């Protein structure tokens, strides 16, 4: 398990404390990091949800991302 890492979190709205806490727990488990630093920013274009970036790894949990997935599915099958 890594000791420290900075993770970028882009959300559609400002996240509540409970949401941040939930995120931290999940991200520690997912990335195996004991002490992480979250760098928050807001992008209303996401509509809802969050995008998490840890280096080259990206977890897209935004409504905009879901719409993009649906669009790609329709276009590419």
């Amino acid at each position, binding site marked *: 398990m890594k000791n420290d890492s900075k993770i970028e979190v882009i*959300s*559609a*709205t400002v*996240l*509540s404390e409970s*949401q941040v806490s*939930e*995120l931290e727990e*999940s*991200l520690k*488990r*997912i*990335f*195996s990091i004991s002490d992480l630093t979250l760098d928050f920013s807001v992008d*209303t274009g996401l*509509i*809802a*949800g*969050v995008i998490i970036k*840890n280096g080259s*790894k990206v*977890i897209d*949990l*935004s*409504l*905009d991302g879901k*719409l*993009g997935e*649906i*669009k790609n599915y*329709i*276009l590419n099958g």
Partner: protein
Amino acid sequence: MEKLGINPLLIGVQIINFGLLLFLLKKVLYKPVLKAIAEREQKLKDIEAEKEKVQKESQATTEERAEILESARNERNKIISEAKKEAEEEKKSAAQKANAKAKAILEKADEEVQARKNAQEGEFKKRVVEAASVLTKKVLSDTLTSKDKEDITNSLIVKLRKVGVQ
């Protein structure tokens, strides 16, 4: 006999004279005439033989000519027949080639039309999906309240619990 005016000596002389004349005629005139006649007859025979020979040769030549003509006619008919056959085959082959070429052109044209159609359909589909995506995004942005967005964000964050270790 003398009373009758007949002189036996004269008769004897006349007989001798006649015999002598006969002898001379035979020797001097008769033989050459006969010889000439024989030669003429021989010549006539030769001419007749020559004539027959020429006639035979002529007949043979005529027959040979007829055979040659017949053969040439047959050969000509054969050549014409073969030429017609070849021309027919050539025509058939050319028609087949033309048909194949036309078919290939049509198939290629069909493929091109189909490809264009597919491309246009793809482009149309892309535009429709793009428009629908933009419209959906716009509608969602306008209609979702802050509470809705927060709820959706919450549900999406909860999903993170199910995400495996990267």
